[in-house]
């Protein structure tokens, strides 16, 4: 249920944006879910709804989710690969660690071409708030 903690951060960020944009009511939040973090969308939606119900400016807010495919690039050979390639090689404990802290994958994964541990997460890491709409 660490999705709850992420839901709190999404609403806190949305509230800050709403204040900055002089919005009295927030009607829609678009949220990007990076594939690597493997967020449980139903738990996140439940947490967002429960938390939003306690905040007047989010009373009728609609949540729109989009999953972003993950993408990794080797800093040595420039090879690229994705979470599907990575997932096959992960144990349950490793997958759970990445769920909490996506950068933990650098402890468990290597470039699928040259074997280097020096690569970076190009896309699809974690949770981002892409749009805050309101009136």
């Amino acid at each position, binding site marked *: 249920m660490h999705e709850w903690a*992420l839901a709190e951060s999404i609403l806190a*960020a949305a509230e800050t944006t709403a204040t900055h944009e002089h919005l009295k009511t927030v009607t829609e939040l678009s949220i990007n879910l990076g594939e690597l973090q493997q967020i449980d969308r139903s738990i996140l939606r439940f947490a967002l709804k429960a938390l939003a119900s306690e905040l007047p400016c989010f009373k009728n807010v609609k949540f729109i989710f989009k999953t972003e495919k993950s993408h990794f690039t080797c800093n040595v050979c420039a090879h690229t690969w994705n979470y599907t390639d990575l997932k096959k090689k992960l144990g349950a404990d490793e997958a759970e660690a990445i769920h909490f802290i996506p*950068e933990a994958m650098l402890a468990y994964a290597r470039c699928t071409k040259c074997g280097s*541990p020096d690569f970076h997460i190009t896309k699809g890491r974690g949770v981002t708030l892409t749009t805050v709409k309101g009136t």
Partner: protein
Amino acid sequence: MDPRPAIITTRFQHIKTVIAVASGKGGVGKSMIATTLALTLTKQGHQVGLFDLDVYGPSTHLILGTPPTLQPTEDKGIIPPQVHGLSFMSPVFFTHGKPTPLRGPDITNMILELLAITQWGPLDYLILDMPPGIGDETLDVIHYLPHCTFLVVTTPSKVVQGAVDKLLDILQELHHPILGVLENMTIYNSRTKDTITKRNLRYLGSLPYDPSLETAVGKPDQILTTPFGQALKKLLPTIERYAASASSNR
């Protein structure tokens, strides 16, 4: 937009004092001081957390002697496990001791994630064990935890003091709170105190070079009885007094 920074203030709202134990140089005893300080404050009856932010080389779990199976629990975030009476969080819970070659943005992401999802609850003190230098972790702590106060560790070595000067320069340039400077591994009278006071900073005191300390690693009760542990205990009123003054300035 990255939503995580927006929740950090909420996560830290019930923590009275955050102390970052830092240095410009590695190998000066930061982790031992951070852990022993956390243990000593706990023994004094305070609610204490210890947060290892040395993402490449976390070592406080080794000093505490935590079992390899120890893990945080999950409840609306992650709850640090209790170790010897203190709440403990470390990247090692997620990397399981494997080498984790992180570049700059990865370091910031890891720190931000831990700051955003760790539910510390009410604490009197949160002690941060910082990695050496003025890299990403130090800049992130300065940026995301503006009220934390730095306890800077030095040694009598000129090599160390040169690097420590750079950290102090940056902290002073950014007007970030500095609790004071603690001199570790002293074997002779140095001029550190003069150098620090010339900067208008507090010299908190000195801790002896203690060859018995290595055998106490992993045994917290034994650490507290070493000459090092006893010397740190004697400095505790000074550290607490200045930490309280740093907190009251928040």
